[in-house]
């Protein structure tokens, strides 16, 4: 069994955490070659080569791959696909964009958001917002899989794989990049943070979200939000945790002013310890919280920030 793992990149850098977690899943399927595609990615390719358990790194350095556009990237992956039994990527927004396209070009099904590898053909994945776990077996010749990173530990360093150059596969120009609006932040990334502090509609405004951010900064945590908070403009879209946002499983998840709708729980219920702060003692979030505090968040959150 040979696996082609598509590395996640941020600009020219390797997104090490997401890639290393997907690598852990990929290793359970066979010998792993990592594809690093982008522009000016020598450093990213070298970083991938150092990950423990990587047999080889393929580097595709071309302007066509600089912004992760799905069409040229899918063509590249398909051009390299023969000889691999599995094509794997972390279930990030960019892989979710590309991998189904790869699968359809290969005339196989994509298996999205895999949470466990049972064997080389059999995978477990959550469905219905995580209200059911389904184990599916694929009869396709090539398995195209995206991996839910929150359920795998990151592979360590210690590898010394060779780096080879892969030829590009051209660009038909179906789409073109215009701009990225990426917020720069010193906070840890939401999906890999050890602690996440999230605010919901109960926070009430963008200005008041500062009290959530202050607690997060005190703890060195990432900031998350419910969909209601994002839709109301209190928080940017990339903070949304849930079925249709990001899935997180930190050591500690603090939810303030969040009611605990199933769509939100789908994104955080695998956290190790959940703390809920809500003024409504009937709020469903308390049913999953290890420690619940019935209180007004405007009192409790600043007090917590002060006392930690």
């Amino acid at each position, binding site marked *: 069994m040979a696996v082609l793992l598509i590395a996640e990149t941020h600009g020219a850098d390797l997104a090490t955490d997401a890639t290393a977690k997907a690598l852990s899943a990929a290793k359970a399927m066979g010998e792993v070659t990592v594809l690093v595609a982008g522009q000016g990615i020598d450093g990213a390719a070298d970083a991938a080569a150092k990950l423990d358990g990587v047999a080889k790194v393929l580097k595709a350095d071309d302007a066509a791959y600089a912004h992760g556009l799905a069409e040229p990237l899918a063509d590249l992956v398909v051009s390299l696909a023969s000889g691999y039994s599995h094509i794997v990527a972390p279930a990030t927004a960019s892989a979710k964009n590309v991998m189904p*396209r790869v699968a359809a070009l290969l005339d196989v099904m994509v298996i999205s958001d895999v949470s466990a590898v049972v064997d080389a053909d059999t995978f477990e994945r959550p469905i219905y917002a*995580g209200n*059911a776990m389904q*184990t599916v*077996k694929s009869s396709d010749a090539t398995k195209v899989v995206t991996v839910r990173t929150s359920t795998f530990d990151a592979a360590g360093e210690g590898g010394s794989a060779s780096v080879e150059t892969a030829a590009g596969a051209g660009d038909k120009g179906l789409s073109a990049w215009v701009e990225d609006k990426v917020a720069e932040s010193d906070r840890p990334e939401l999906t890999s943070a050890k602690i996440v502090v999230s605010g919901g509609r109960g926070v009430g405004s963008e200005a008041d979200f500062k009290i959530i951010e202050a607690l997060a900064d005190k703890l060195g945590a990432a900031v998350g939000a419910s969909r209601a908070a994002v839709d109301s403009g209190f928080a940017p*879209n990339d903070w949304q945790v849930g079925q249709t946002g990001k899935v997180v499983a930190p050591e500690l998840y603090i939810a303030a002013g969040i009611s605990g709708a199933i769509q939100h729980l789908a994104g955080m219920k695998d956290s190790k310890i959940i703390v809920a702060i809500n003024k409504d003692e009937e709020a469903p979030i308390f049913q999953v919280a*290890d420690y619940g505090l019935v209180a007004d968040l405007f009192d409790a959150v600043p007090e917590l920030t002060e006392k930690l």
Partner: protein
Amino acid sequence: MKVLVPVKRVIDYNVKARVKADGSGVDLANVKMSMNPFDEIAVEEAIRLKEKGAVEEIVVVSIGVKQAQETLRTALAMGADRAILVVAADDVHTDIEPLAVAKILAKVVEEEAPKMVILGKQAIDNDMNATGQMLAALLGWGQATFASEVVVEGEAAKVTREVDGGLQTIEVKLPAIVTTDLRLNEPRYASLPNIMKAKKKPLEEKTADDYGVDVTPRLSVVKTEEPQGRSAGIKVGSVDELVAKLKEAGVV
């Protein structure tokens, strides 16, 4: 231009899914079903493009059981012009994989020749997030997924996408595939007069065989289980007690 909007009938998002006792899947008998929320957003976007004069005709299509008719009528009541139902299963529990759905949709696109297909980014039942990208691949079209803004400019569309770090804007040549994210728009409710009018709008019925597409699944279900539950912990009486508990647990 013409826009095609595929809509899926799924479990209503307010209903908690229950796993069937035999582990074969989720129980959908006598459960409230609705249009996939992302597809409501897709229909709404098509209607807004029509209201702006960028679109002349909106065709909605659903693939599945006969009851998906209701979902199509909802889309017609919102403002779509015409509907196609592709009957591909008789049991609500047999669902069709995104690859097969995309293959049928590709045939519908061949016949209807739309300039844009707007799909939901994911169906809230299987959460695959795949059909739009697969359809784009089969047609050799460009794709703009997870859209939070769509502007049609001549022979291209400028689309802002929700990505992990924030937002990305791309320009995609038409014809193209667009998939909707949550913040693209807020779908309208169908008014009673429009619900009545929708009953007279054309709804054509086809079968998967009409398109010569093999819908045999590539994945087989080994088992379906309830996830491991989390039980409620304790209520703490004060911030001090909370801090003490967190220190005890070693997480702060």
